[in-house]
């Protein structure tokens, strides 16, 4: 662990000014990820800029188009329990509440959640090689312990997964990430926010080093009638997903009119395959049809030994979660199987 300086700011401009000066200056929001990474000596910040003084980033408010804007500094708890979120975006509420613990969600912020780093054991062990932490040092996970690791979208250099639950729902809801830098504002579609590792696994996402997240906007469609989040893990709660699935569905006359299926815990980003969703349009919401969609979603899946089981587990989780989405009244706390 290294020593660092600390500064609290209350204006966006001051935060932008500081982060553009030195790449060892980092933002701290809830602190639940960055403090942990620092304690393991995985990052060595020189200066932490505490942005919790920027009050406007804490807001959750309706947008002009009938959607909802979630401030970057709104906590995960405040977001999950926000009246509008519970009513119109229950899928998001469920996914957030399936992550971490109540204490962590009280500190964790929306901006910090989408920027959290992988939980790969080798990434987390400063003594071990890891291309994500130390580019060019190698990836021990490929031939090592890889029970938690990716089965799709992997590269020669990295098979780490992105661990967020909230982001699986945000991908299903087609959220937009709002960022600001000294040159202006920018909006990033959620599907383009996180990235695959390729040969630069040290880069998790497309946020630029001089940018700050101001918030996340949700479109009006929240799939509030038919939705479900299922999280499968080594214990019932307070563990990262081995596989998770977010389903948002619109039914018309008993047939699927629109559907979003996104998987967590299996790739370097929330995993969505639009062809599988298109395949389901106009079809009956049956286990057989969902199973066909699952085959499409996992068609390029590849195991690395310990995580081979995740391929079949993902397919079954998709079917089960889509069935659960037909009956959201059965959903249980902790995103456990309900049907």
């Amino acid at each position, binding site marked *: *662990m290294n020593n660092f*300086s600390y500064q609290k700011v209350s204006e966006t401009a001051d935060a932008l000014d500081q982060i553009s000066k030195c790449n060892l200056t980092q933002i701290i929001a809830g602190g639940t990820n960055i403090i942990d990474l*620092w304690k393991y*000596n995985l990052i060595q910040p*020189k200066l932490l800029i505490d942005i919790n003084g920027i009050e406007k980033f804490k807001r959750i408010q309706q947008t002009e188009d009938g959607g909802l804007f979630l401030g970057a500094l709104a906590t995960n708890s405040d977001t999950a329990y926000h009246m509008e979120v519970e009513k119109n975006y229950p899928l998001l509420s469920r996914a957030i509440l399936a992550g971490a613990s*109540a204490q962590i969600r009280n500190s964790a912020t929306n901006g910090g959640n989408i920027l959290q780093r992988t939980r790969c054991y080798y990434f987390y062990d400063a003594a071990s090689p890891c291309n994500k932490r130390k580019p060019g040092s190698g990836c021990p996970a490929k031939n090592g312990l890889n029970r938690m690791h990716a089965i799709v979208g992997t590269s020669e250099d990295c098979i780490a997964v992105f661990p967020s639950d909230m982001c699986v729902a945000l991908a299903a809801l087609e959220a937009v990430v709002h960022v600001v830098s000294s040159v202006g504002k920018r909006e990033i579609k959620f599907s383009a926010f996180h990235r695959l590792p390729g040969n630069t696994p040290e880069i998790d996402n497309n946020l630029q080093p001089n940018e700050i997240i101001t918030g996340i906007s949700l479109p009006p469609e929240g799939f509030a009638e038919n939705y479900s989040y299922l999280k499968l893990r080594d214990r019932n709660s*307070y563990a990262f997903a081995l596989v998770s699935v977010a389903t948002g569905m619109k039914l018309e006359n008993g047939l699927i009119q629109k559907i979003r299926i996104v998987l967590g815990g299996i790739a370097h980003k929330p995993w969505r395959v639009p062809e599988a969703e298109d395949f389901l349009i106009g079809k009956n919401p049956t286990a057989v049809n969902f199973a066909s969609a699952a085959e499409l979603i996992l068609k390029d899946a590849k195991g690395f030994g310990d995580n081979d089981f995740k391929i079949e587990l993902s397919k079954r989780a998709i079917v089960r979660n889509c069935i659960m989405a037909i009956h959201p009244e059965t959903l249980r706390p902790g995103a456990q199987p309900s049907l």
Partner: protein
Amino acid sequence: MKAESTDRENNNDFNLTTSQVKLKINGNCLQLNVLPWVSLLDAIRDHCNLTGTKKGCDHGQCGACTVICDGNRILSCLTLAVMKNKSEITTIEGIADGDELHPLQKAFIKHDAFQCGYCTPGQICSAIAMLKEGKANTREEIKEQMSGNLCRCGANTNIIDAIIEIKNKGNYE
């Protein structure tokens, strides 16, 4: 070891000044001088000498360090003391009313809700905040809402029993 000492040497150019942090802990206003990287947990234990709050993992994985900060249960190991300037904090030392134990403390004794007791301060602070949140009604919901507090002695069933008793009685202020 060697790597660590090099890190520290490299840091000599740092301005290692302490910051003044004001905390109201269990009703007492304290003014601390802490270095930026001191966690709220270390500040509570080492600077305020309130050692009831426990350090289990120091990485957010056990819940032993749970305190109530401005009404919310949080992990004091994953927050910096400087970030909590001017906050109001309740630790296990502030739960009882003088010598009169809090109803939940009594319920823990009645239900044998601990063995070694290491997780207990965190469990009690967490449960009191959870009851005030009012989000958990069924046993299943309470278990889910308390999952951030691990008990290595496996007293969980009795812990949940104690919490349910207090919830049903409604006397958790």
